[in-house]
């Protein structure tokens, strides 16, 4: 099944794939970083005492979670020009990924914060710690441990999601596969190579997630 692969052409296209891989990396890292900021802000709003702020963040989180990412990408890709905004494809894609992952991260962070038992907060209140001191010394350190594994899980999802940017012609890994397919008509070579690279990224991130999970369980158990 693999003997028919044309390695000569693959070799010829390898620098091209490497650039695609690099772009996938960069897009994922930048989007993840921005999504973290968006997610933390959205989570803070979600837990805020003001109804309006809370309502807005719920609308944001739920509408992202109940619609497909591809639709969100098209929404910005076709929608921003209607508003008179000329944003290049790459930036449009990053905006979509950032807002998409941001909503999921908001929920991850919220789950982490609410996982800290109420008694911990009361103990902090009783010793006279103020809100920020309680956040800084008691809640966040405990919440952080629980959030690391699902955040790495979200990073895995984000890398895979970035493949959809190929639909708006961003030159990342999947787009490279499409290009090789249309230029030489070699879909087998093209997409197996692409899949191979994604799998490599997946295994690295997955083992990090498993490791952090194990550390977490270990810390809780002893």
């Amino acid at each position, binding site marked *: 099944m693999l003997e028919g692969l044309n390695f000569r052409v693959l070799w010829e296209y390898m620098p091209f794939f490497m650039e695609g891989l690099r772009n996938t990396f960069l897009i994922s890292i930048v989007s993840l970083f921005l999504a973290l900021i968006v997610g933390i802000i959205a989570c803070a709003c979600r837990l805020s005492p003001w109804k309006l702020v809370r309502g807005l963040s719920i609308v944001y989180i739920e509408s992202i979670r109940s619609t497909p990412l591809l639709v969100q990408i098209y929404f910005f890709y076709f929608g921003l020009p209607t508003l008179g905004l000329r944003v290049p494809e790459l930036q449009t894609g990053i905006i979509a990924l950032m807002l998409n992952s941001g909503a999921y991260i908001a929920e991850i962070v919220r789950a982490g914060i609410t996982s800290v038992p109420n*008694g*911990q907060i009361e*103990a902090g209140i009783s*010793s006279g710690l103020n809100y920020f001191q309680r956040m800084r010394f008691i809640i966040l350190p*405990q919440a952080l441990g629980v959030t690391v594994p699902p955040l790495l899980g979200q990073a895995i999802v984000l890398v895979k999601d970035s493949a959809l940017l190929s639909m708006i012609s961003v030159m990342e890994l999947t787009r490279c596969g499409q290009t090789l397919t249309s230029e030489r008509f070699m879909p087998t070579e093209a997409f197996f190579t692409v899949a191979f690279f994604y799998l490599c990224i997946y295994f690295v991130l997955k083992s990090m997630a498993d490791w952090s999970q194990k550390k977490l369980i270990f810390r*809780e158990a002893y």
Partner: protein
Amino acid sequence: MIKFKGVNKWFGKLHVLRDINLHVTPGEVVVVCGPSGSGKSTLIRCINRLEKFQKGELFVDGTPLHDHSTNLTKLRAEIGFLFQQFHLYPHMTALQNVTLAPINVRKMKRSDAEELGREKLIRVGLADKADSYPTQLSGGQQQRVAIARGLAMAPKIMLFDEPTSALDPEMIGEVLDVMIKLASEGMTMCVVTHEMGFARQVAHRVIFMDEGSLVETGSPHDFFDNPQTDRAAQFISKILTH
């Protein structure tokens, strides 16, 4: 030191505190007892405002708690509070648990706070456990660290919310021992507990609560040997035969 004047509290429709009047003097040890759901935990949680109340006045060391302008954070630093479930911070060592508030609320230097913390841990008999994490300690040891954590703020009042009821029987003694020592040193204490031996030995006053009201109050001797109300008599016979 603590003065309740006609304090009332509702949880929704449930009337959990009814017209509480109570005066605790400095150095006094008060034991609060009563059946579960009688409002005794709520009563002492009001003293450092973990619970709000809707009607009445409450003064702690002269500071009005019903007044919204009161600086609660400052007041709470003066009151030690012990929980049934200890609530030690699991990500910090025993010493870090004890020094967190002195460093951040009292703005002590770390080295001073650590010296203070070790001194408090010695006082509760845990000098060798300073660097242990809560999960490495037994329940009794955890509760004693929690006491040290409260003492480190040099509180004027210590409140205990059923401090021994989550402990195995063989560990209750070590915690009560520390509390007895504290009482003999003149600390003002309010203790919700069913440990009647402790009440007899150190309490100046026993308060019996039922359905949100103060039903009876008296010296341990009077309360146990000569209860005035049927409800109290019933309660005592129940816990003594238990």
